Structures are given as structure tokens and as C-alpha cells.
């Protein structure tokens, strides 16, 4: 079946919108931005992510609540593959989450590699996550050896809050 130019354009636009949605999810997660996090999900969204099973609300609250055991977190997404069907879409997204975890006075660099298997829905023109399943592929754990000296003292620093430099550029 030959698709019209408009249909083809809409497919590309949907895939770009879904990439943006996932980037906003990463920012919401890494900056503990609850408003942004809420905006990523449909009202009836479901999650299957480790200990979080079912309605997404407890995950939204937990992932955007301050946690002294998590010093920093960096969620980098890639390999985004989508199948779009009108106002519905499915997707696979690779994620590496890099965190410094503080436990028993020890700081550990923890890397988790995995994938999101998603269902998305477009509501009032906005793509949202309707169901997200996290598949764990691997993890690594090393004693933290980060340096705060030399050039590392000079870099602007990421923050798990709206003090992060991204907000000055992109607004809230």
C-alpha cells in the first residue's frame, strides 16, 4: 500500500516526538523534576521496573524524591526503535544509567545497562508513555575514584535539581 506524503511525514514526526519524550524522561529522572516526570505519562500509565509494578504514580514520586544514597545519576538513551500506528506506538530504547551510590560510608560507581520496552499513546496531540517495561541487561560496580582536582574542579557540575545548568538554557 502506497502511503501519502502526509502519512510518511507523520511517521517521521511521531518518531522525532517520541525521541524528545524520552529525552524529557531522562532529564526528569536525572534532575528529579516531578512536574516534567508527570507530564511524560498517560493518566492510566503502567510500569514494570524492578520493584515498581503497576500504576506509575509511586514510581513518579520515588524517582523524583531526594535520596541521600544516590549522589548523582546520568541516564543516557540510544538505539531508539519505534513502530508507529496512528495514535499508538511501541518502542525499544537502550539506556545506560551511571550513578554514584553511597552506602555504609562507601561510594560506588554503579552502571546499569538495559532497555525500555514501551507502549506510547498520543493524547490531544502529545505523545505520552502508556506502559514502560525495564529489561536489565548488565550492571557494573566499582569503587568511586572520581577526582575533584585539576580540570575536574573547573567543569560546571550537573545537579539533581533545577539548579542544573540545563534549566537556565531550556527553562522549566
Amino acid at each position, binding site marked *: 500500500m502506497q502511503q501519502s506524503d502526509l502519512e510518511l511525514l507523520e*511517521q517521521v514526526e511521531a518518531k522525532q516526538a517520541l525521541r524528545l519524550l524520552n529525552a524529557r524522561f531522562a532529564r526528569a529522572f536525572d534532575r528529579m523534576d516531578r512536574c516534567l516526570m508527570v507530564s511524560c505519562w498517560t493518566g492510566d500509565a503502567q510500569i514494570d521496573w524492578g520493584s515498581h509494578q503497576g500504576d506509575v504514580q509511586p514510581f513518579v514520586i520515588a524517582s523524583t524524591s531526594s535520596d541521600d544514597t544516590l549522589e548523582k545519576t546520568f541516564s543516557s538513551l540510544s538505539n531508539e526503535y519505534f513502530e508507529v500506528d496512528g495514535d499508538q506506538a511501541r518502542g525499544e530504547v537502550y539506556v545506560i544509567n551511571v550513578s554514584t551510590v553511597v552506602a555504609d560510608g562507601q561510594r560506588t560507581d554503579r552502571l546499569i545497562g538495559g532497555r525500555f520496552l514501551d507502549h506510547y499513546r498520543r493524547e490531544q496531540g502529545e505523545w505520552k508513555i502508556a506502559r514502560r517495561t525495564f529489561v536489565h541487561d548488565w550492571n557494573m560496580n566499582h569503587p568511586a575514584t572520581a577526582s575533584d582536582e585539576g580540570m575536574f574542579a573547573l567543569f560546571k557540575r550537573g545537579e539533581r535539581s533545577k539548579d542544573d545548568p540545563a534549566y537556565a538554557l531550556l527553562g522549566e
Partner: protein
Amino acid sequence: MELKRRLAAALDIQAIEDQMARYIQAVDRCDLELLKSVFHADGVVDFGVYAGNAWEFCEQNIPFIKANLVMGWHRFSTVSIQLDGNRATAESYMLGNAAMQPPEGELINCPDNMRYLDVWEKRDGVWRLYSRDLILDWNTAWPYSGREDGEFAQYQLQGQRDETDLVYQHRLINPL
């Protein structure tokens, strides 16, 4: 006509990026059929460890990585695509992570940073790889430090390197 041409270019770039994603899906799920579908039948690769026909490479490589890697996982990013009609050249960055058991000694993680240098061709409306070279930029070997205890016990959905992986149930493996 100008608008038609610009739309076609946007679609071509998206179609090639979708195929780049399918390539990694194939390698990480050890899916031979999907991997071959990303190449034209007369495609070629130069991966150092193998240079020659792409389908023969696929048939040799999938059993090899399945037998020799305990885990294999790749991400691609930093994509640049140069379209030239029904041909395109592309560079993409790859960050791999694998676990392997050396003949002697302990299990290791061996992350690497590589690049793919590609020639893509659109034939009968479908973009597939005509040529892919693999360039190694950086690699290392670290003692395996994966854990299943403590907080990691919550992750009951573990990726699989075959058709039991959940991505198949989600109908996200779709060779062209």
C-alpha cells in the same frame, strides 16, 4: 518538487537510522535472520577479524559471539549520514559492553568504543547496507563486577540473547 525532495531526504535518513537500530537488535539478540536483512545479499564487510561477503560474515559471526561471549550489548550514537541519491555514506559511534570468560582466569567485562563506516544503498525502495567497516578506537578489560544480589535482585526481567527476550513479545523485531 523541492518540497518532495526534502521530505524524501528526511524519510531516507530515518529509514537508515531504523536499520542501524535493527543491526544492533540483531547482534544483541543473536538473530541471524534480522542481521542478514540489514545487508544486501552482495554486501561486504571489513571487520578486521573478517573481511568478505556480509551474509557469510553474519552466518559465521552470530554463532561465534553466542559461543564466545557471556553477554553482548551495543549502543550506537553520533550518527552522520550523507545522502547521495540511492546511496549514502554514514559514520556512527558504537559503545559496546561484553562479558567473556578467558581460557584462564576470571570472567571479564570488555567495553569498547568503535565506529561503523558504512555505505548504504536503496534498492527496490529499501535501504540496506552495501558495506560496513568496523574501526576500533578504544577498548579495555575490567574484572567482571556484575551483581545479582541486594538491589539488583529486583530486576527479574533479564535480557536474553535469543527469541525469549521480551522485545519479541513486544513485536519490535521486524526485518524489512
